[in-house]
């Protein structure tokens, strides 16, 4: 029985219970991940991080939330009030909705019903996630626009440009997954990875997805929409109190959501690590949820690690990287994957596949070498002679100093 059929038998109350569970899980994960991020980044900077509220500072995020809720809720005079209020709600809702199609466990028994920890299963589940994620961006863009002030507007525009650019690359990286699994349903994709994870089989896709998911969630080093040094707070500059808290929540739920999607699409979802398949039967199948969240937390750690390591990118470099590197590479890779898939489906001999693959590798290497040498040539500065003045000056790159005739000599 497929997961879709399994979920189809869920009674209404069970769906409601699972919906509530997903919601609670997302909020709890946000609280924990805010704490986790601050602790990990602190250690990377040789600090301790929050350790005051509760054991190890675990309740810090909750305390911050309460503090935010108790603050004054400001709406600027120049703001478009209705849109200003709706924007954070759109953002947050979209993030939570993305979680509906994520399979978090294999078949389990919940209140005597055989089901799976997945709210629903759509035949176009991954497309649904992408669509919902794009709606989430509306929250940010509208927040920036409705604030009636410059920095939020710039932040909102940046964010929309960013998400549009990186969603193209993200979508393209997913195409290879669809080609290999033959389905867009999340549970089918997980099932297709029983033997080999797509992170291994489709490694370039995985890398492109991993990069674009950071761009998609507006996180460091791609956090240009809320670049503190340039735009104050970006789109949420004018927000305070609970509305700000909603954006905060949305950001972290979004991170968890894209991590969960990455887990589902590339790391075998709720399946155990290779060689540990027997653990999937533990606790009547419930142990698979541990595997799922282990992988999600791994991705979350990558997010934090990136933030702790990389400086923020310059906006034009960021756009250049998206359009001139990620998207062309994705397109090329899809072409290769599609060709290989068609070959194997038509029963092409192994030798042909091998020849094709090595041909592709050779072409890539050739292009790479040609590109490198062109870059090196462009970098070579023509030697220029300049007359050294009679006072101390800093050196000029690529220039040789010619001794002046001594005016007094």
């Amino acid at each position: 029985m497929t997961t879709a059929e399994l979920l189809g038998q869920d009674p209404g109350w069970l769906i409601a219970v699972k919906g509530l569970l997903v919601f609670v899980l997302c909020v709890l994960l946000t609280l924990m991940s805010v704490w986790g991020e601050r602790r990990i980044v602190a250690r990377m900077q040789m600090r301790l991080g929050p350790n005051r509220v509760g054991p190890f500072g675990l309740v810090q995020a909750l305390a911050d939330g309460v503090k935010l809720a108790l603050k004054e809720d400001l709406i600027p005079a120049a703001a478009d009030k209705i849109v200003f209020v709706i924007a954070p709600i759109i953002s947050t809702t979209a993030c939570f909705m993305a979680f509906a199609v994520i399979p978090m466990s294999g078949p389990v028994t919940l209140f005597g019903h055989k089901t799976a920890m997945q709210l629903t299963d759509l035949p176009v589940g991954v497309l649904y996630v992408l669509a919902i994620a794009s709606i989430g961006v509306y929250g940010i863009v509208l927040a920036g626009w409705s604030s009636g002030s410059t920095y939020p507007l710039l932040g909102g525009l940046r964010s929309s440009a960013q998400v549009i650019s990186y969603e193209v690359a993200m979508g393209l990286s997913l195409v290879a997954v669809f080609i290999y699994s033959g389905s867009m349903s999340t549970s089918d994709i997980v099932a297709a990875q029983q033997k080999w994870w797509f992170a291994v089989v489709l490694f370039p896709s995985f890398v492109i997805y991993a990069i674009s998911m950071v761009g998609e969630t507006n996180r460091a080093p791609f956090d240009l929409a809320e670049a503190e040094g340039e735009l104050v707070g970006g789109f949420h500059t004018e927000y305070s109190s609970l509305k700000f808290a909603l954006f905060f929540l949305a950001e972290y739920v979004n991170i968890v959501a894209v991590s969960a999607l990455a887990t589902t699409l590339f790391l075998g979802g709720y399946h155990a690590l290779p060689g540990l398949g027997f653990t999937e039967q533990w606790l009547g199948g419930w142990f698979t949820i541990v595997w799922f969240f282990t992988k999600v937390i791994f991705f979350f750690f990558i997010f934090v690690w990136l933030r702790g390591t990389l400086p923020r990118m310059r906006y034009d470099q960021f756009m250049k990287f998206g359009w001139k590197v990620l998207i062309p590479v994705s397109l090329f890779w899809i072409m290769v994957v599609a060709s290989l898939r068609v070959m194997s489906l038509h029963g092409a001999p192994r030798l042909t596949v091998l020849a094709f693959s090595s041909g592709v590798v050779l072409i890539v290497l050739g292009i790479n070498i040609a590109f490198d040498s062109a870059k090196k040539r462009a970098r070579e500065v023509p030697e220029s002679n300049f007359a050294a003045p009679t006072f101390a000056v800093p050196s000029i790159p690529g220039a040789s100093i010619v001794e002046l005739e001594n005016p007094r000599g």
Partner: protein
Amino acid sequence: MVEHMSNEVEPSRRDLGLEAVESVAVVNDGPAPFAKQLLGFWVTFRTMFKKVNTVSYPEVKEPTAPRFHGRHQLNRHPDGLEKCIGCELCAWACPADAILVEGDANTDEHRMSPGERYGKVYQINYLRCVFCGLCIEACPTRALTMTNEYELADDSRAKLIFEKEDLLAPLRAGMLMPPHPMYPGMDDSNYYKGDVLGFHPSQETSSEVKHD
């Protein structure tokens, strides 16, 4: 003769100061190779397991540097008389106008310091003080010094104006609480030279008499 002259006159590049800045052509190789850039990730990862630099402050207090500029202290001579002579030089030196001094004349019945005058009112406003130490440099009698105490937070403006009794050094062994007369046979110059090493019994009795 001509040779000799040219050797003398010709200034070298060093004489012109040209050797002060090294003129090395900078080779711009562009960004480091990708593999080398990834080393940054190893740096942050490794740092996670290093000992943290920060101190859990209220629980753990690390000693300050020995010459740290902390709260001020008004010192005493070894017999307990105050060193402050109320000259106001500290107040004049203060760039933040944080010090207020009012001097008064010492009398034989009421002597707080050796010499003519003593500081009757001495206030330091720690909301203004910038801990620069110019007052310490200005003090002619070494009456004013700084301690290493740095916990100077409080919840009202009034509490952060320290009065003379907050700043005065505590009485140590061999010191008598002023007012009391100077050491018999000594004058203020002896005090400044450090001839007085403790109190004399006669100082004690006379101070007791005054208290009664």
